[in-house]
């Protein structure tokens, strides 16, 4: 378990895609995948997944998937830190399966519990005519590879429309990151002997 001179560190990600908030759409499912740099490799867990189809509950605006995420990465370099890319799909008026949103966020790197709400956006049609034909035919503009959303290049010319949010929860555990010399948390926020969420008695 312990090693004196580790060459790599581990990042363990547990969590769930809790649900979504799309005011105008219903009956949706989501897919997730991870995008990471060349120095990273998943050691265990699933890199991709498709959730169940969920509908809005009575009296609630939110859609709930409660979809588990469980993966462990190994790396030598924080560059290319993994991002989770979530894509949400749902039926349109004619029953075709169309994309309702893409979103991406970096996996948090401080150990502990994190809740992230990410905006979801879809590519926009170039012209009104194309918008009408795509609505009619059920073939909306979508990214050929959802992983584009996690990259910084090549997005200058994309026009998108953001139309909802997805909530994710993460529990992060890292191993050997400190031994390799990396500081991921500010030392003043973690007093010795206490975790960040505990309060000393008597205060």
């Amino acid at each position: 378990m312990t090693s004196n001179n580790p060459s790599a560190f581990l990042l363990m990600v547990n969590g769930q895609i809790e649900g979504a908030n799309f005011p105008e759409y219903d009956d949706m499912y989501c897919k997730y995948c991870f995008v990471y740099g060349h120095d990273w490799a998943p050691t265990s867990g699933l890199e991709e997944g498709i959730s169940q189809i969920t509908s809005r509950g009575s009296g609630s605006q939110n859609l709930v998937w409660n979809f588990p995420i469980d993966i462990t990465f190994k790396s030598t370099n924080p560059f290319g830190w993994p991002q989770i890319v979530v894509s949400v799909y749902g039926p349109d008026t004619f029953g075709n399966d169309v994309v309702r949103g893409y979103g991406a966020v970096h996996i948090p790197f401080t150990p502990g519990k994190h809740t992230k709400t990410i905006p979801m956006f879809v590519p926009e049609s170039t012209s009104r005519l194309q918008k009408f034909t795509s609505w009619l035919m059920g073939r909306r503009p979508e990214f050929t590879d959802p992983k584009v959303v996690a990259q910084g290049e090549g997005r200058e010319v994309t026009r998108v429309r953001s139309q909802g949010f997805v909530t994710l929860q993460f529990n992060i555990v890292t191993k050997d990151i400190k031994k390799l010399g990396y500081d991921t948390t500010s030392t003043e926020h973690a007093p010795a002997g206490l975790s960040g969420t505990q309060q000393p008695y008597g205060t």
Partner: protein
Amino acid sequence: MTVLTTERCCKRCRNAQSARSLMAEVHIIGQIIGATGFPQNSLFCKWGIHTGGAWRLLSGLKEGQTQVDMPQIGDMAYWSHPIDLHYTTKGLQGWPKLHLQVWHQDSFGRCQLYGYGYCHVPSSPGQHRLQCATWRPLGSWQDQLAQIFVGGGPQLRTPDLIYSGADRYRLHTVAMGTVELELGVILRHFDRYGVET
């Protein structure tokens, strides 16, 4: 400021890893989330990171342009543009600064400047949520009148003025919206040189 370490010549160092392991490194991992508080919604952002002479970029893109977002709900335009940079440094001067230009693209495809802003990358490790305020140069009353009818407006000749305070005393500006960012900072080997963050 004393130099933290001398850079070894590539011919001498056998292992690139061991040479890198002496230098202090900074990882900036985060996102430009979006912008809010601007007059119109169809916005995109050109961003860049500026550092001093002692800093060297090892991997990542230090400038870019986000997508154009037209939000359907609410006022905030969301870009979710990832930033992942790996710097190595020999000194503390010239800590990375992120500068932004927020532009508006209308339905005809014309682009108009909506604001300049900059913020320093946080110097303590951990995850930080930042709000960067933006401003726009204000021209004369003739420029402002023309801007109401045809758009456009004065722009800075060089973007250096966004993050430097040197020549600003003649500039008259007006406040615009805010850009939200989430930046995470990972530092390496800073404690070896006695640097407290």
